[in-house]
């Protein structure tokens, strides 16, 4: 240790003080300069860069939370609610507030049934949430579950039952193939929607009207500006812009008619499409079997989905829009009209039916359904009795190209333009089509069978119904509409939606049309009509045409015996109709898969459907008249 030492030179306090003051002065100048420099930095931050930092501070603090709009309701033509939003409850857990989640779930499962699937999907969705977020555990709780939980709520800190609106389809499978359903947004949905408007949306229309009218039904999402802290927890709402609810839709479907068609089909798989020929609005669109759309609205498990997918009769398949059936004899009125209008035949032209038809130079027979033949027939009786021979000859005389071009006007071979997604175009064959697609020449025999709607020809029930509607309203082909009217939230009156006119079928002589319609009238009301059964006890006059679509191609020598053919190879039964004959208010197409001959199974389905519509139409609006001049 150093101690005081007497040997040290004398210290000059005065000099030392001067030295110190010099040093201290220098230091103080350095300090002042440094402090000014530091302050300069604060000036830069707080004055010059202030705006930038103020913005960043604000965006730190405030976040925007979307508010989901209420989805528009859907009504049928008579004002019945067919898609609604029902207040439901879901169970949610805030993981942050719970010490042992597994134990909590165990305890909760005493009150609320929690399947292994629920627990798994909770564990999965938890990862997408933050610890203080409320994570859904189970949707669509039953009333009992909600009640049991409410009584015991004090036992479950961090768990709660939360109300929300879920989509509900009161008519279940009856309308699935029309309305479709909503489901959870997936990546593909996000790609096709306006991300900004869907930030708060959980469900989106997946198929049917729900999908096609998504933009109307969805509404405009609102937002909340909320203040959050650094960990993202919401502290308070600063500003709220309410969501604009989606537009309510009125569909042209009449649930009573739909139900009648559905019931009439019974256990048969098939489709019924009914259109109002005056405005192209769709009155019924049935595809059977159906499935319950409500399963999808709560998020369907893979297992349940697979079950529907594999169910017999393929319920997911929309037969009315997508089913391609050979039209069979239901095509005959159109072939006949083509013949009349193109001058190939007249109403008086007679053809002798002896049961078999041969193309000149070939020895392959083309048969009538009546082995002995029908004798001398004109177009009227040919339609009444569905005489193949007449139409074989007519088809040959027309040629496939003229058949194609004329029938195309009625919408065969092209999409009808209905306002739901997914319809198929069917197939209207032509020489050119065959060369292009099949790379083969057209054979005369193919023209012959095209005359009776066999061969390559494929139509959807919707196309067929729309073609009939076009035929009976004098040639106005509409793109059929399911949407009848819209009603914006807050509006008193609804806005009528009209089906667009696709084209006006060329018309040479209205008399020709009349001849065809009279022929169809004879099918039901004629002495030898093939569908006389449905005229019984009718309050109005029906016209129609039966049809049988081959599923299994017979050899030329074979004779079709229904009892010998397996059920799934039996012919499809078809029937088209319109009524009342004097001023048609409904055009209908019925397909009963493997139903055999059209008259037996399909025609009564049509009758039931027509009754459901016309009984109330006649009572309600007896004075309604056809606006288009040249109808029957």
């Amino acid at each position, binding site marked *: 240790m150093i101690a005081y030492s007497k040997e040290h030179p004398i210290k000059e306090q005065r000099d030392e003080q001067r030295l*110190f003051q010099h*040093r201290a002065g220098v230091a103080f100048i350095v*300090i002042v300069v440094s402090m000014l420099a530091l*302050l300069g930095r*604060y000036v830069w931050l*707080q*004055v010059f860069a202030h705006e930038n930092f103020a913005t*960043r501070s604000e965006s730190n*603090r405030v976040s925007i939370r979307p508010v989901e709009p209420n989805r528009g309701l859907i009504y049928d033509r008579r004002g019945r609610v067919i898609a609604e939003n029902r207040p439901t409850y879901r169970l949610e857990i805030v993981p942050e507030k719970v010490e042992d989640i597994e134990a909590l779930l165990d305890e909760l499962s005493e009150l609320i049934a929690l399947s292994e699937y629920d627990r798994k999907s909770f564990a999965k969705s938890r990862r997408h949430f933050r610890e203080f977020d409320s994570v859904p555990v189970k949707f669509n709780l039953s009333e009992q579950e909600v009640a049991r939980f409410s009584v015991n709520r004090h036992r479950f800190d961090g768990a709660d039952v939360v109300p929300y609106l879920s989509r509900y389809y009161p008519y279940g499978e009856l309308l699935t193939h029309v309305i479709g359903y909503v489901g959870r947004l997936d990546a593909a949905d996000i790609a096709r929607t306006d991300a900004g408007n869907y930030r708060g949306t959980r469900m989106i229309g997946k198929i049917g009207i729900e999908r096609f009218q998504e933009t109307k039904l969805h509404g405009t999402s609102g937002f909340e500006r909320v*203040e959050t802290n650094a960990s993202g927890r919401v502290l308070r709402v600063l500003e709220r812009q309410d969501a604009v609810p989606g537009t309510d839709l009125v569909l042209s479907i009449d649930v009573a008619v739909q139900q009648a068609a559905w019931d009439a089909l019974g256990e048969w798989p098939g489709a019924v499409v009914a259109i109002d020929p005056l405005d192209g609005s769709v009155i019924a669109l049935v595809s059977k079997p159906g499935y319950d759309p409500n399963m999808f609205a709560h998020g369907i498990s893979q297992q349940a989905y697979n079950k529907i997918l594999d169910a017999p009769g393929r319920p997911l398949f929309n037969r009315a829009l997508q089913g391609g059936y050979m039209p069979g004899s239901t095509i005959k009125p159109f072939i006949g009209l083509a013949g009349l209008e193109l001058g190939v035949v007249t109403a008086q032209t007679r053809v002798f039916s002896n049961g078999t038809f041969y193309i000149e130079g070939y020895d392959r027979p083309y048969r009538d359904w009546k082995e002995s033949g029908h004798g001398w027939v004109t177009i009227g009786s040919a339609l009444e009795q569905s005489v193949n021979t007449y139409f074989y000859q007519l088809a040959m005389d027309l040629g496939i190209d003229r058949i194609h071009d004329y029938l195309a006007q009625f919408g065969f071979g092209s999409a009808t333009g209905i306002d739901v997604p997914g319809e198929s175009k069917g197939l209207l064959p032509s020489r050119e089509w065959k060369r292009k697609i099949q790379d083969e020449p057209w054979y005369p025999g193919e023209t012959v069978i095209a005359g009776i709607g066999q061969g390559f020809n494929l139509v959807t029930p919707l196309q067929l119904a729309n073609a009939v509607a076009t035929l009976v309203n004098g040639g106005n082909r509409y793109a059929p509409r399911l949407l009848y009217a819209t009603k914006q939230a807050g509006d008193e009156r609804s806005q009528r939606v009209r089906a667009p006119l696709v084209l006006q079928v060329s018309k040479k002589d209205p008399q020709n049309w009349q001849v065809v319609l009279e022929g169809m009238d004879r099918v039901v009301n004629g002495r030898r009509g093939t569908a006389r059964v449905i005229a019984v006890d009718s309050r109005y006059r029906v016209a129609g045409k039966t049809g049988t679509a081959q599923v299994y191609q017979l050899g030329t020598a074979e004779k079709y015996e229904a009892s010998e053919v397996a059920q799934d190879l039996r012919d499809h039964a078809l029937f088209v109709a319109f009524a009342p004959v004097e001023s048609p208010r409904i055009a209908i197409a019925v397909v009963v898969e493997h139903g055999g001959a059209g008259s037996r199974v399909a025609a009564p389905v049509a009758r039931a459907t027509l009754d459901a519509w016309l009984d109330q139409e006649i009572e309600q609006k007896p004075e309604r008249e056809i606006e288009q001049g040249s109808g029957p």
Partner: protein
Amino acid sequence: MKRFLPAWLGLPRLDPVLLALLVLIIVFGLVVLYSASGHDTAMVYRQAVRLGVGLLVMLVISQVPPHILRIWTPWLYGIGVIILLATWILGVGRGTQRWLDLGIVRFQPSELMKLAVPMMVAWYLHPRVLPPAWKAVVFALGILLLPTLLIVRQPDLGTALLVAASGVFTLYLAGLRWRTLLGFAGVAAAAAPILWLVMQEYQRDRIRTFLNPEADPLGDGWNIIQSKIAVGSGGITGKGWLNGTQSHLEFIPERHTDFILAVLSEEFGLLGVTLLMLVYLLLIARGLHIASIARDTSSRLLAGSLSLTLFVYVLVNGGMVAGVLPVVGIPLPLISYGGTSAVTLLAGFGILMSIYSHRKFIK
């Protein structure tokens, strides 16, 4: 009146100027702390108690004449070094060994060295002719380097920096040649890479983050970025007391301790910062004034060194909050929440007051 009473019963020996400035800062500090803690009165109360204890310590020390303090100096320094060694040896294997638990009080021995080192260097230079001869410089360097290295080992870079600075300032004020000083600076610069190797990983991260905070804005860069946002968004007049969103919504980490200046800047703006800097500058100026009128070498050097050290606190903390200096654990003097540094600082002001009030009594 003083004449009729013994000195210890008379008015306490204080510097009213220093006292006024200190009270100003302390009150301002408590006001800011109330906001920074999120209206936590308990926390403000605890800090007020600590500052009260610190003021008491200051009051006591200020009554002790400088020559008595000088006599205690080697003991204080010796005990401090021994405790540091003890914590080093006893704390082998443990991460941070800054605290020594004395049962009743948890005590940070490195804090003591902030006072003991300048006192010891001043004590050592006291009898010598100034400017000091090179042998004396080397010896004085030894006095300051021994505890500094022990503190670096702890590791506590901030305190080590302050301890080393206080020693170097003493030497500088003693008239150390500019040449030698520049030499120190050169050696320090050369030692930087070595220091890098000695540093703990988290300390290196802090330096890296300082150099480029945006590289990891949610991780290590968070502190610096959020602190700058707080300061910048405060603007000229600030968002107002208790209205700082950056602090109240918990975006600023360490908002009541090392980063409390960010809260102050956010809520009181440039005006608040300028006012605070001005008060600090006045404190430093007053300290240097006291030093320059002191009558003996050790008092002069010690008072000067303590004043200059205060500046280091302010500069490093202020620079850190403004994002111009790396994050080292140096608090904002008398404002950051925490007991030990406040007590040490106030004890230092006690020494200054002692020197001031005893300037006329030359031993």
